[in-house]
């Protein structure tokens, strides 16, 4: 599986970097695939409501009603129809890219199986919505889709009268057919919306709206496309004739030519295998999950920062159970926790200055604990021998720290850069463990743990608790969010940072650790 994921991941990382340069990380469309999908859904919904007003469900009148909207009212009805089509196509493109990206970055395994699994019926519903829409136009393409789809459905053993018999001859259809079809074309997207809501249930602060600039840009693009190349119907359906050449919408109908080359039973089998295979991907193979975060009530004051910062809604506040004078305490749902450590960094007692033998905090991750982080920070600092010395804090999903290491650069890798309490930067510089601190992690806007980079930025900039203290010399800090393949350019930036540090006054070298040097800090 990794042999498929690795090149995909590299392709995404490189493309995202190109898009970062044009759009900036916040507006990068590849960082907003899900949100763009939602945006296109709403365009489809609004334009669909307008088209429904002018739509006539009579068999003889349905085609003419759409033609009237398209041509006689090109400036509004025509534009709405084109928006309806192009936004639907863009929705498919976003959904497929979103799926590929989450797959390539392994963001569907472990506790993230839920979002992946609920995404599978979403795909089916998106396709069903689009196909039923094309059916409504009742042109030659609609006739082709009607024949093929109904024959495919008839291959299932549980339909009584073959559905395809509705399309045998010109007098087979009655007006009720299009009434039923439009009902389906409205009902399926509504069910889709409901499942989209379910899809996001295990995420905190899901991004469902793209940044305004990106939304305006993509809407302007669609409007321009609608005016320059409006969506039009093909010749009207005629059941006395067999459709010949049909202009397929390949976003929705790419699989339809298969029907002419494989039996319907085979296509059902293929669809079933693909669906089950897709649904099973989070467990192929099962992920060795890090242990879930653990709450230590002795150090938890019930502040709730861990709840606010957890990207997976895995932490909740409940009434206090240990008699301490706080109203609430944190509890972790182990089934939802990925062990990223973002909660640990958010916890006020997560301070390396504290003078206790085994550093403890209110919420900690057993596989990458606060105490372990302090010990690894000291160990990395001891490897630095040539000034200016730079200590790099990175994440397991980004550039390998070992690739950056030399006598003046040492790295400490965390499960997520969001697991770094800002006080560690203060600690490293105030203790003289290094002359500068460099933070890195996955590409900006593409944090594997969703919010790690965002929270780190805000904490270091003093805009979100826990904030980096004012006394920390900012000129001795740098950060660069880099994808895994960007080790060379990252090393170049660290070298430039060292050159900058060389112009600053020397920092005192680390003194041998003395218990008296470590003072208790009140959070």
């Amino acid at each position, binding site marked *: 599986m990794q042999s498929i994921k690795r090149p995909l991941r590299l392709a995404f990382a490189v493309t995202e970097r190109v*898009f970062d*340069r*044009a759009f900036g990380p916040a507006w990068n469309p590849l960082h907003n695939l899900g949100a763009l999908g939602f945006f296109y859904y709403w365009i489809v919904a609004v334009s669909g409501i307008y088209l429904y007003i002018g739509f006539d469900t009579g068999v003889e009148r349905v085609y003419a009603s759409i033609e009237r909207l398209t041509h006689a009212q090109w400036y509004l009805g025509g534009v709405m129809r084109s928006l309806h089509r192009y936004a639907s196509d863009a929705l498919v493109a976003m959904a497929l890219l979103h799926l590929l990206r989450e797959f390539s970055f392994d963001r569907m395994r472990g506790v993230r199986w839920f979002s992946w699994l609920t995404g599978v019926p979403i795909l089916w519903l998106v396709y069903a919505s689009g196909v039923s829409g094309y059916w409504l136009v009742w042109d030659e393409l609609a006739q082709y889709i009607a024949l093929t789809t109904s024959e495919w459905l008839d291959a299932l053993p549980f339909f009584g009268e073959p559905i395809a018999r509705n399309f*045998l001859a010109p007098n087979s259809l009655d007006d009720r057919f299009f009434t039923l079809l439009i009902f389906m074309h409205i009902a399926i997207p509504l069910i889709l919306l409901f499942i989209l809501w379910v899809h996001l249930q295990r995420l905190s602060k899901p991004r469902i709206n793209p940044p305004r600039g990106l939304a305006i840009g993509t809407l302007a693009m*669609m409007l321009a496309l609608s005016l320059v190349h409006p969506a039009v119907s093909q010749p009207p359906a005629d*059941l006395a004739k*067999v459709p*010949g050449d049909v202009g397929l919408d390949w976003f929705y109908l790419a699989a339809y030519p298969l029907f*002419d080359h494989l039996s319907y039973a085979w296509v059902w089998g293929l669809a079933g295998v693909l669906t089950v295979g897709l649904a099973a991907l989070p467990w192929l193979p099962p992920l060795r999950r890090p242990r879930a975060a653990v709450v230590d009530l002795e150090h938890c004051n019930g502040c709730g920062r861990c709840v606010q910062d957890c990207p997976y809604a895995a932490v909740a506040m409940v009434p206090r159970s240990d008699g301490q004078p706080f109203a609430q305490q944190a509890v972790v749902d182990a089934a939802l926790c990925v062990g990223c450590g973002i909660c640990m960094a958010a916890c006020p007692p997560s301070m390396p200055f504290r003078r206790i033998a085994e550093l403890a905090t209110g919420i900690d991750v057993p596989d990458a604990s606060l105490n372990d982080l302090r010990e690894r920070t000291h160990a990395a600092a001891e490897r630095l021998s040539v000034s200016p010395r730079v200590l790099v804090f990175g994440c397991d999903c980004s550039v390998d720290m070992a690739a950056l290491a030399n006598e003046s650069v040492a790295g400490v890798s965390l499960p997520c850069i969001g697991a770094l309490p800002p006080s560690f930067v203060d600690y490293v510089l105030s203790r003289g463990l290094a002359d500068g601190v460099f933070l890195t992690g996955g590409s900006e806007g593409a944090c594997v743990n969703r919010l790690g980079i965002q929270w780190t930025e805000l904490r270091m900039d003093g805009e979100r608790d826990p904030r980096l203290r004012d006394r920390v010399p900012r000129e001795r800090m740098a950060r660069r969010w880099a994808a895994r393949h960007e080790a060379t350019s990252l090393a170049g930036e660290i070298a430039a940072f060292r050159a900058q540090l060389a112009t600053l006054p020397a920092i005192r070298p680390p003194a041998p650790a003395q218990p008296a040097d470590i003072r208790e800090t009140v959070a």
Partner: protein
Amino acid sequence: MTGVFRYAGQALAYLGFALLLGYFASAPAYTYRPADRAEVKLSFSHGGERKGGCRPLTPAEIAKLPPNMRRSQACPRERVPLVIEMDVGGQLAHREVLPPSGLSGDGPSRAYRRFQLPPGEHRLALRLRDSERRDGFDYESSFTVALRPRQNLVIDFRAEAGGFVIR
């Protein structure tokens, strides 16, 4: 990247996406059926006779039935499968045994088959057996049809109309 280049980059990305959407929304065309072919569809829904035939109920048996369910005959539920044959130009083109539908085999048998033929005149002969007889057929019809390119000719079966009909 300077502002101008950033906007140019964005414009390029939007243009690329627009071209992708604009083109693949309706192209390239797919040929479902070639222009030099016509299609004959043989499709019908018809129930065969009951297997074993019906037996008259005795007055005692009728009396045992609830008043609202009394009937004069007891009929087995299961129907016989249909046997259908179609000749094109004197040659057997299709033969099929159509089992009755339903879990108890008591529903109608259904057929939906497509045949592609070249345009022109064709002699079609159809035969259907819907009884327990072992040989021969209960319905036979033949038609001479002149098919136009891409014509869709439908052959249905309606027992009440005397057999096969062209729609």
